[in-house]
């Protein structure tokens, strides 16, 4: 028998455990009984039975069209979402796509979101000390040359001159030698480095090549992750103390997880494909539920039952990879020709089906609506027959 941590007697436990309730509901029954001290076993039984019958009532009936119900339950509140790409400066001044555009982006399973971001949690002393947290910031945020010093072009000598800022170099933990080395590797030029001064130029004196070099120089990522353009550091309250959390503009989830000081057990990003690649399909499913739920909750529509979102996420991850809801994904991979044609680009589907001689078995709902047959849902799937015996017993098949 399962352990019950509530202060109720054994008979009460027996009657509650005897019901067909899930664990959490049983626990709630215990809690209620505990709060009302002195409830008799009969009363406990009555309560448990009442909860059980209500629970069984609210379960989905066999042949219920759960998909259609989910579509409506998400679609109706969806009409109240903000239509325009409203950038919301909520968490730490980072713009994140919200509302309808974000929801569409999620169910369309876009390869990259409009505004990719990561929430990077830190571990150990990196999370508690600002200095340490900043170390991680410099390892994540892309450092370009303009952040390290001044670049000038000497047209007379055909040279690019960089005056690095010593304090910045120290702060970002990169040396002038390293900077010079990176420039040589990525531009294929010889550099002359003296202290914090770096100089280089094109092999042949050419004004065009010189400008070209400066352009390319600006693009080089000297430190950090190329995709991450900005990192915001924020102190967040915890139950026991506080910790530093990083929010990034741009994301490279796999790279970020490898960085020292990053808590690889909590860090997340808002790109479901990156999560799929790095953490697997189950994590992607969780992320889809979490993201859709947050998007709705942000707009005050958190009364959408999470089961609908879970169904969407289950469908999107059913084949082991993320599929979009729509003609390129789930609807487009339906077995039935008529169901596919009824969704979008009707003529193409019918034409291709005709060319390939496809057969439609009329098993699904849509195709039966098209041909005017009863659909196999609810009472449509049950055959009823009147009993012929005189005793009045009717039989259902």
């Amino acid at each position: 028998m399962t352990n019950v941590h509530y202060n109720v007697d054994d008979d009460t436990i027996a009657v509650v455990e005897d019901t067909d309730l899930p664990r959490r509901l049983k626990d709630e029954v215990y809690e209620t009984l505990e709060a009302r001290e002195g409830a008799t076993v009969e009363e406990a039984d009555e309560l448990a039975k009442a909860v059980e019958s209500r629970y069984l009532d609210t379960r989905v009936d066999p042949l219920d069209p759960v998909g259609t119900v989910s579509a409506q339950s998400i679609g109706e509140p969806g009409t109240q979402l903000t239509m325009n790409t409203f950038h919301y400066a909520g968490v730490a001044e980072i713009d994140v796509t919200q509302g309808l555009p974000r929801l569409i982006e999620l169910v369309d399973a876009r390869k990259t979101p409009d505004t990719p971001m990561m929430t990077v949690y830190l571990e150990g002393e990196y999370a508690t000390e600002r200095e340490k947290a900043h170390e991680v910031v410099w390892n994540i945020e892309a450092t370009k040359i303009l952040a390290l010093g001044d670049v000038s072009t000497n047209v007379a000598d055909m040279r690019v001159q960089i005056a690095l800022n010593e304090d910045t170099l120290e702060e970002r933990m990169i040396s002038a030698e390293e900077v010079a080395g990176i420039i040589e590797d990525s531009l294929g030029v010889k550099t002359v480095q003296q202290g914090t001064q770096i100089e280089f130029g094109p092999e042949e004196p050419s004004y065009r090549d010189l400008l070209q070099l400066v352009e390319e120089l600006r693009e080089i990522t000297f430190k950090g992750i190329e995709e991450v353009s900005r990192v915001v550091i924020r102190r967040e309250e915890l139950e026991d103390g506080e910790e530093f959390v990083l929010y990034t503009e741009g994301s490279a989830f796999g790279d970020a997880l490898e960085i020292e000081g990053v808590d690889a057990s909590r860090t997340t990003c808002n790109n479901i494909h990156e999560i799929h690649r790095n953490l697997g399909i189950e994590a992607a499913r969780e992320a889809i539920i979490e993201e859709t739920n947050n998007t709705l909750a942000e707009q005050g529509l958190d009364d959408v039952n999470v089961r609908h979102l879970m169904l969407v996420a289950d469908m999107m991850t059913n084949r082991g990879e993320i599929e979009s809801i729509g003609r390129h994904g789930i609807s487009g991979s339906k077995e039935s020709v008529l169901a596919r044609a009824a969704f979008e680009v009707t003529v193409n589907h019918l034409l291709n089906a005709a060319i390939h001689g496809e057969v439609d078995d009329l098993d699904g709902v849509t195709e039966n609506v098209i041909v005017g047959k009863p659909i196999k849902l609810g009472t449509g799937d049950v055959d009823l027959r009147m009993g012929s015996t005189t005793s009045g017993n009717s039989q259902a098949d």
Partner: protein
Amino acid sequence: MVDVSQHELVPEHTVLEDDTLEEVLEEYDIDRTDLPKIQRKDPALPDEAEIGDVIKIVRDSRTTEQAIIYRLVVE
């Protein structure tokens, strides 16, 4: 290398033994190919999992305490 199974988004994955698999398929009255799929290259997959194996996944569910689901390893 990062240990993927430690991440809070990743539930527990284990390879299902053949005899327990029979019970599961019987209970749901389905073939193993009717199960949801998981790719061979999925990072959360246990190392010993081969194509054709069935993975048992124990999720912390939002609607109940724990939810057990199964996925078939595919190419």
